[in-house]
């Protein structure tokens, strides 16, 4: 029996999303741009999906651009904002590579605000860095690594005061937090992805008032205000809309996941007293837990847990021969050895009440054995 504790990586399609998608894969196959009956029925589906997403995010229909996923939405937000000019961008070390990479590639100057030890961006420093005339401020709404929730209202306000457009990467946050875009001021864009909340992969959106002032990045037809040319996938859009609406309506999942996560962390701390958890314990996505374990490598522990029936993620990516911890953990002041021992467990809908226990007990059995192997090399 497998226990899946990697919800932040992806989730399976829910029934609601599947039922919303299915008609558009076969019988309502038309091209939404065509005026004939087949086109009109597809167009109606697309409009309905857009309205649903707009409502769930608290924004207007005209401010929703469907994309092929979260990374694409992030790229569009950054590249479309810079519009080929190498302007100044302010961001953080917490960003997903979709934002960080696009900013590095396209910005003329990139300033990164420091991150506190609790995984939350130092807003005072960010405020100092953001200057009128900056092309963009880009901040992750909640960290994909620690789950730490960033003070987006304060950030939105300080950007609005300076007239600087703000992009919030909400790919993780959208699965857990109500995103009321109408309550945030300024020229705002927000990226979301369907598959993190039981929608289809390859479906995402960029939403918010700021989308209307973006320059086009891809060339083609005029679909999605010209920002996402190409025949729209009504099925993907409908799957995203259904999954998002379902998640917004679920008032119990967050509490249940947080209880499971907290129970897991308590048991793990009892078994391995030298272990630490990264990120603020309160301002954190309910399903996220990032454990820092000394004397082991997180990815090797992942492989062993996989063998024992648990799907979890290593907290630090290891690219080919160079094993480097994530920039986010370094920015939080976590040393290399400890960062390489990071393990990310993310709970959610697929978990039963006993899963936290089971996972904690597997980890506390495997870690000492793995430490024995590590101690044998004199580490």
């Amino acid at each position, binding site marked *: 029996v497998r226990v899946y504790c990697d919800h932040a990586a992806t989730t399976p399609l829910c029934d609601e999303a599947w039922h919303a998608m299915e008609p558009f894969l076969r019988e309502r196959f038309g091209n939404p741009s065509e005026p004939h009956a087949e086109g009109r029925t597809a167009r109606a589906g697309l409009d309905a999906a857009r309205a649903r997403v707009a409502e769930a995010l608290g924004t207007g229909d005209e401010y929703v651009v469907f994309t092929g996923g979260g990374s694409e939405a992030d790229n569009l937000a950054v590249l479309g904002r810079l519009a080929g000019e190498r302007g100044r961008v302010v961001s953080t070390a917490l960003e997903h590579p979709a934002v960080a990479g696009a900013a590095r590639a396209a910005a003329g100057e990139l300033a990164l605000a420091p991150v506190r030890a609790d995984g939350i961006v130092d807003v005072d420093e960010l405020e100092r860095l953001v200057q009128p005339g900056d092309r963009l401020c880009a901040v992750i709404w909640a960290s994909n690594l620690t789950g730490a929730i960033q003070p987006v209202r304060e950030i939105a306000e300080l950007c609005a005061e300076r007239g600087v457009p703000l992009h919030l990467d909400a790919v993780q946050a959208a699965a857990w937090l109500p995103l009321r875009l109408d309550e945030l001021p300024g020229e705002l864009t927000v990226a979301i992805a369907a598959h993190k909340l039981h929608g289809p992969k390859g479906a995402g959106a960029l939403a918010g008032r700021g989308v209307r002032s973006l320059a086009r990045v891809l060339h083609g037809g005029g679909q999605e205000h010209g920002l996402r040319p190409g025949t729209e996938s009504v099925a993907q859009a409908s799957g995203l809309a259904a999954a998002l609406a379902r998640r917004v309506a679920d008032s119990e999942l967050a509490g249940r996941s947080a209880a499971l996560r907290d129970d897991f962390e308590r048991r793990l701390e009892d078994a391995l007293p030298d272990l630490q958890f990264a990120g603020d314990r309160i301002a954190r996505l309910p399903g996220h837990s990032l454990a820092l374990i000394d*004397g*082991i*490598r997180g*990815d*090797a522990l*992942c*492989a*062993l847990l996989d*063998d*024992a029936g648990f799907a979890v993620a290593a907290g630090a990516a*290891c690219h*080919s*021969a*160079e*094993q480097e911890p994530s920039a986010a953990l370094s920015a939080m002041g976590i040393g290399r050895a400890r960062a*390489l021992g990071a393990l990310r467990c993310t709970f959610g809908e697929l978990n039963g009440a006993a899963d936290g226990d089971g996972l904690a007990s597997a980890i506390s059995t*495997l870690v000492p*054995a*793995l430490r*024995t*192997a*590590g*101690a*044998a*090399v*004199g*580490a």
Partner: protein
Amino acid sequence: MRLTVHDLARAGTLDAPDADGAAGGSACGDQVRIQLRFAPDASFESVRFGVLGCTAASAAAAWLAERCEGATLLEAARLSLDACVAAREIPAERHACAAVALDALAAALADALVAMPVVPRGARIAVAMSGGVDSAVALHRVLARGDDAVGITLRLWIDPDAPDAARACCSPEAVRRARATCHALGVPHLTLDARDGFRETVVQPFLDDYQAGRTPNPCTTCNGDFRIALLAQTADRLGAARLATGHYARLVRHDDGALVARGADHAKDQSAMLARVPPALLGRLEFPLADAHKHDVRDEAASAGLAAATAAESQDVCFLGGGDLRGFLDRHGVDLRPGEIRGGDDELLGHHEGAVAFTVGQRRGLGVAAPEPLYVRSVDAAAGIVRITPIAGLARREVELVDARLHRPVSHVRARLRIHMADVGATVEATPDGLRLELDEPVFAVAPGQVAVLYDEDGAVVGSGTISR
């Protein structure tokens, strides 16, 4: 990638290991250790591994430990990276991580070799593997005869500060290539760490010679005083009566013992490098490339698909690692002795940055403008003075040799006075300190410290000695 809970049963250390090997700790920080204990039947009864590394390194270490248990040393020495990554489904971009575990096993097996009871000498043949194309083809030819072979690589030198460390013949890449070549041919491979002995026997005398103003032949010293003897000793432990190397040289066997002789490819001939190999060892040696030409060897390697087919050619002096001599000497503590350049009448002609890096007969790099070409006539390292002369001032008809050996009673020889120089007829005469050569014609660049190799008319090495004057 497959790393299982079951693997952890072999994680840790042994109380009293017979062998212990570790590797890693560089670029990626992955470290692997493997410990082995022999059963009375000389198979490994207990194996433990340690690892602090990624899944690939961990899975590879675990697989090697699992496969070593119950294996003999030579069976363990056949465990290949290819088999390991296939068994543990390690993707190509992580093979370098798995290779760290193979390095650790290689170190453990070298250690085990010392602890293992000596195997009685049999038909087995040991093949010296450098990671280059020549030794790979030598092995290929030995196997084509149906021989039972074992590959041995000596790790002689690692100089991470060298400008081109990867080109040096004992780079980690070269060792891994040697291992991969053996494994691809199903041959067990052992890597011996011979760095301490190499430094003491070859590199230190090399540095001392330069410090004293002489120009040494480290390859001749290495083969003669160190490498071949160590390989033969290792072959002994493995029960290999014979030892093959990839040198371009022949052996001529007489009733009174074997002699090294020129190889068929005169451009590549390496007989001079082997001139100081003790005659007692020559009887056990084989040179499968004796009749080969370099281009045939490359073709053969390519058509056999040998891993080393495209390896960069190693250099005359392997440990220089692509660097200049002066930089190497400086890095290893030789006092370069900057000073004056003086002419035949002791007149001051210029200055140089280090006397010790000059060689008698050298023309380039003097930085002295003159109507006719000028050459180094002598190097006074103590005073830092390099004396130069027009070509006529270099001519020599007499050469004194010390530390000389004659394997056959001869009175007239063909003498090669430096590696890349045509040989010259010479009459040999014994002196209290060694030998004196009366050259049939004048020779223009006789550098003290170089080994003079004495050939008979058939190209066999009948003697040698170090030029003293």
